[in-house]
């Protein structure tokens, strides 16, 4: 090691061997063909379909034959109440789940970072739902939230005497119920990210605040809240991407119903695909692409710029 020094551009000055041209050396050591295996799979099965979706969204399509029909699919999407409702539901679902995971994940992480009893147990228990599949969670909650026999409504009626709501069968609250289940399932991950974020705050801040006589609330408000901002922005972006694209949980709990009450764009894409309307299904995909990108891209840039200010 001592006979070799490396400079910035990667060229070596070795006493044992004569120096070689840097470009050739880098070329030989870090060959560009290392990109090829991943690149081929990624381009063929992800980039190419994404690019072609912008053509097939404007066609009537049977997989074998496509007829260009202009904006007809998009006009249909935005004029059909069941379809345009899915756009609104996607936004509601994405923002509610993301906001709830930020607030509850932060609170839970603060509690689980404090020296309380049974901390390891509590951390494990809140994380376990993350490991269960959306299908398993969906089926379990479908039974727990059954309007007549489910244990949730039995508990409600035994306490209040009145009948509990039809969580997944009432069109007014079905979407919110699924969002609630989503939060239940994903909260553990948000909490884990926050715990890591809080653990990364240098202890000196807390010591200095204690010397100055700060109480727990002031420590939370002026130390934990601002200094765990990187964790907050990670949780926001991750849960928003997941929420806007969410399909598994909605499909296994309500299948977008009752009616179209809890349909999101991802479930519309599946329904139109099943019905054989491949062009319309792909138009849904393009709309989802635009929605997700138009929200996530500026948001992540804004969060990044705030992060560097801190």
């Amino acid at each position, binding site marked *: 090691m001592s006979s070799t020094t490396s400079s910035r551009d990667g060229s070596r000055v070795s006493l044992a061997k004569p120096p070689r041209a840097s470009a050739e050396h880098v070329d030989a050591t870090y060959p560009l063909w*290392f990109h090829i295996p991943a690149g081929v799979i990624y381009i063929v099965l992800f980039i190419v379909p*994404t690019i072609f979706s912008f053509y097939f969204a404007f066609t009537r399509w049977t997989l074998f034959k496509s007829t260009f029909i202009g904006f007809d699919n998009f006009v249909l999407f935005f004029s059909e109440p069941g379809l345009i409702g899915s756009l609104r539901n996607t936004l509601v679902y994405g923002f509610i789940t993301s906001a709830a995971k930020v607030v509850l994940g932060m609170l839970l992480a603060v509690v689980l970072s404090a020296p309380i009893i049974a901390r390891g147990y509590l951390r494990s228990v809140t994380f376990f739902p993350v490991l269960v599949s*959306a299908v398993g969670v969906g089926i379990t909650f479908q*039974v727990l939230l*059954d309007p007549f026999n489910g244990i949730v409504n039995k508990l409600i009626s035994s306490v209040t005497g009145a009948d509990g709501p039809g969580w997944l069968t009432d069109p007014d609250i079905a979407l919110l119920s699924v969002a609630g289940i989503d939060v239940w399932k994903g909260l553990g991950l948000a909490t884990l990210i926050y715990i890591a974020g809080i653990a990364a705050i240098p202890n000196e801040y807390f010591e200095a605040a204690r010397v100055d006589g700060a109480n727990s609330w002031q420590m939370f408000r002026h130390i934990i809240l601002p200094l765990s901002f990187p964790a907050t922005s990670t949780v926001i972006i991750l849960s928003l991407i997941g929420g806007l694209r969410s*399909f598994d949980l909605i499909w296994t709990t309500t299948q977008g119903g009752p009616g179209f009450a809890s349909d999101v764009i991802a479930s519309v894409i599946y329904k139109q695909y099943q019905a054989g309307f491949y062009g319309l299904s*792909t138009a849904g995909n393009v709309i989802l692409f635009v929605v997700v990108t138009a929200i996530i891209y500026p948001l992540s840039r804004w969060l990044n710029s705030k992060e560097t200010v801190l």
Partner: protein
Amino acid sequence: MNAMRRPTRWLVGLIGILVTTGLFLVPFAFVFTMAAKDTNEASLLEFSWPTHFQLWQNVVEVFRARDFMLVIAFINSTILTVASVTLMVVFGAMVAYVLDRRKSRLNPLINTLVLAGLIIPPAVVPTIWVMQSLGLFKTLPGLILVEVAFGLAFTVLTMRAFIASIPREIDEAAIVDGAGPLRLFFQVIFPLLRSVIVTIVVVQSIFVFNDFQNPLYFLPGSQNATVQLTLFNYMSQSQTTYNLLFANVLVITVPMLVMYIIFQRQIVAGMTSGAVKG
């Protein structure tokens, strides 16, 4: 953070135990008790200890149902998970490594593609169209490659940050010792990635094993179902057999719980230690 008085520590801890038990443990206990009941008792959907405890019998029946469909599904899901996660890790590490070590005109393009992969929802029917023209649609290798394509972005992003923390002097030393690029990567660099590989393997295995959407689209048909699709065996019929349904939920949940428990310490270690020692 350490200034809590003892009574407070107990009080907050106890409240935490009560709340999390009610919210998170009861649903798990519910799945377990339902899976151990007989068909009539399970149909009441009550949260109670089974009068006839027949968990083993239900689990055996779930495995034997529809000509051992669940056994085949477990084989399919295992092949799918192992193959796709292996390819993701090896190919993703190769990209992340060259991306970090070598300044190239390709780098901005690759960075853009990685970000695109994290954000953009896959275009479903066009993907089927491409797979069909390659003869990959409705095949397990096809689904494996799809999972690899969708998982690469996260893998490359995570690995790149870790590889940047490995000093270049290690590369230099290996080259002086006469290692070629392949030996340098697979025998020197790859073993140093152990902790980040464990993290990625666990995260991606959970994702692929629990995936419902991609098998539904790209590997339809009951003869090559993955484990998540077997659950619908007990629901689509006129009468749902709840004890078998929940026995099935339990059986397909256990592998990922066990894997997490085994690797829990290493994941935490991988997250905290980070850099290479020496």
